[in-house]
């Protein structure tokens, strides 16, 4: 059933979107939240379930693809996503009936709301990642063999491109190269599909999950109570409460065309003395406790301030900080053989298989 989102929902969504992608500076989320709240003063915003749409309705993913210039350093001027949707409709000769997030976390968790307000299209409570992955080929729609293209792009300068590639990995390579030359980010519309395809292969309830995370995080209650509620909602585990002892840039070789260079953070557990190691490249990919895998991508990891329970952005991690390392599973599709092939550590250049491989 569709829901009219309130201003409080949007504020909680802001918190939840940051929680699910703590590696990325949240400023662009804050900028977009302000825009959305202003726009909502004049117009209502509808969050729909995919089941409410007609099975043949055309739906598209909207989201930013970035490599270089931060979105917060050059916020979109406002016409980019509408331009992408128009280009998609022109290319396919059909009207888009609803939009969904390319990745239900961080800035891409917020953008569909603004686009929904601008276009009056309903926003679907689904996405094809259930988190953020660095590559546009890392989606559950790809697992389901839903075509990624055509991909409509518009960059910071207003320049546009349409990419048509049947192979999602090739699409990723082409889009990433274009994004760099477009200025560092591009608004995109991709994975045009029917509502039925999204229903079958998407991750559902992902927007409302962000709102629920935000409700917990924003609540006037104790940190312990918040952790308990998060554990229940996300099946989360606190792997460690640990002090940062070392931060290392360029800690691993990389040649995979992934944006950004890898880095590592070493921590020491405050009570057990165990050594915790976080391997990072855009996202936290791996958590090792005394050398054993405690979490591995596609598992999700959030760092929390141990005293306040607030999300710690990687930019703010300093030697001496005490953080709680929270891990929780990604959407179920990611633990299939096809899902792990796309998103386990090996896909990020770390020569490890996900522990669930051995149980599959």
């Amino acid at each position, binding site marked *: 059933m569709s829901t009219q989102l309130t201003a409080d929902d949007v504020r909680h969504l*802001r918190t939840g979107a940051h929680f699910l992608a703590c*590696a*990325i*500076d949240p*400023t662009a989320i804050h*900028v977009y*939240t*302000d*825009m959305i709240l*202003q*726009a909502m003063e004049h117009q209502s915003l509808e969050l729909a379930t995919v089941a409410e749409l007609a099975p043949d309705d055309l739906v598209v993913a909207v989201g930013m693809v*970035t*490599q*270089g*210039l*931060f979105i*917060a*350093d*050059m*916020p*979109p*001027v*406002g*016409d980019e996503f509408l331009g992408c949707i128009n280009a998609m409709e022109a290319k396919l000769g059909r009207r888009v009936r609803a939009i969904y997030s390319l990745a239900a976390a961080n800035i891409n968790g917020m953008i569909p709301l*603004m686009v929904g307000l601008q276009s009056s299209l309903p926003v679907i409570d689904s996405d094809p990642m259930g988190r953020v992955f*660095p590559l546009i080929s890392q989606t559950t729609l790809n697992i389901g063999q839903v075509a990624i293209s055509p991909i409509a792009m518009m960059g*910071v*300068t*207003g320049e546009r491109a349409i990419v048509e590639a049947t192979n999602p990995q090739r699409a990723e390579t082409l889009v990433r190269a274009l994004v*760099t030359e477009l*200025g*560092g980010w591009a608004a995109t519309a991709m994975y045009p599909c029917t509502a039925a395809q999204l229903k079958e292969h998407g991750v559902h309830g992902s927007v409302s999950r962000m709102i629920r995370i935000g409700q917990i995080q924003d609540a006037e209650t104790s*940190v312990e109570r918040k952790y308990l509620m998060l554990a229940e909602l996300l099946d989360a585990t606190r792997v460690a*409460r640990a*002090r940062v002892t070392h*931060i290392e*840039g*360029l800690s691993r070789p*990389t040649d995979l065309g*992934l*944006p*950004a*260079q*890898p*880095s590592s953070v070493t921590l020491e557990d*405050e009570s057990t003395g165990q050594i915790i190691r976080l391997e*990072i*490249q*855009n*996202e936290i990919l791996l958590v090792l406790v005394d050398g054993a895998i405690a979490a591995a991508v596609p598992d999700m990891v959030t760092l929390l301030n*141990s*005293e*306040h329970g607030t999300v710690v952005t*990687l*930019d*703010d991690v*300093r*030697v*001496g900080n*005490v953080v709680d390392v929270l891990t929780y599973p990604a959407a179920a599709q990611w633990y299939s053989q096809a899902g792990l092939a796309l998103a386990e550590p090996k896909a990020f250049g770390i020569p490890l298989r996900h522990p669930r491989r051995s149980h599959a």
Partner: protein
Amino acid sequence: MRIGLRLRENSCRSLVLDGRTIVSAAREIHAGSIAEALDSALAGLSREFGSGVREITADVGHVLATRNLADVVAVRISPRPPADAFHAASVPPRVEAAVSRTVHVSGGHDMRGRPLAQLDLEAFLAALPSILSGNVRNVAITSVGSTASTDHETRIADAILSNDSEMRISISSDFYSSVFRDRDYTAILNTALMETGEELAATLDAAGQRHFPAATLSFARNDGGRAPLPRLAVAPVHGLRPEPASVILGAATLAGVPNGEVVICTDSGVIVGHLRGGLPAANSLIRQGYEASLASNAAVVESYTANHPIRPDVSSVIADLRIEQTTPPPFGLVPTLPAAQDVALVGCAAAPLTSWIDRLETVSGRTDLEAVQHRAEEDAQSAAVQLGANPGQIHIIESNVFAMPYGNPGIVRIRVQAAGETSGGKERFPTTEARRAAP
């Protein structure tokens, strides 16, 4: 000896520090103006301590924060102007009210420093006469990607100054943030405060020359350090909120703790900060909720809670600065410093000269990374020397490399802090051994 001053519109509070010892407790002079209060305070201290005073550092944050902001023309450089009101850059209301006119200029760079659009200098020059003919004398210039290339900002600044060299200009690349609105906000606020900064610098300089001609005058910075007075006229935002850092530094100075944790009980709550190498641990932004952040290095101060992790191997300083002390401090805290000291003024007096390098670098591997980091450390040391530090007494406090998520491969952020003393100020700054004891 070193003097710490705290200026208000009609008062001047002062304290004299010798090493870690307060030789003259805080006293406050009230008068009809800042100049009178300052003159009276320094005259009294001059009679008492004369030529023994080598450094005078003033906290001017309160005056800067309460003065009316000057009107500002905001020049924003980006490939395209906002298509609607929702997508226009927004700054906090107090600063927004100071912006009398916004001028958009086509231009900007990507993170590699390559132009996203050609700078439309011609269109700007066409608009320039109307900017210069108005009453506004302050301009803030912010360009997309100016952390990677300052070219478009400096060309616009040059165009203005070549037509009117009296204009006060602040360019956003002087303040590190990867967020346009943070730099825009900081540049606007900075230029809006320049006139006040100039006035304060002149007032302090005149009083200093009169009563302590041999002493060096500085203003307290938001990071717990200090900078020479002339910098107050060009970068006043760095002196806008020094007190949190001064409190942390002052308590640590009195306790003789260069590395560890400082807990301060105040009437409005308990805060905690950390000392590292004799200075407060600092962030490059002063965050203000969800609004634009001030791009100025400032001490990290958090509220203390019942969940605060206790670590026996880390030195801890606890100061109770509550006016009303009829009840014990909360959380079972036991003060380790005597009460009733103006620790913020101690921190102000003790502040060393600090400099920062915060910039993007392109690296091709680990060796390259080490080279650019080393170069940044040398540049930070050079910057400290330019501020007046003795080259033999400069220390690197922080030297970090940050990966940039979803950035261009090979581009990293390098952030280095150096601190030092003038040749006469070596008594407070911690020894190399003490600094190495940092956790």
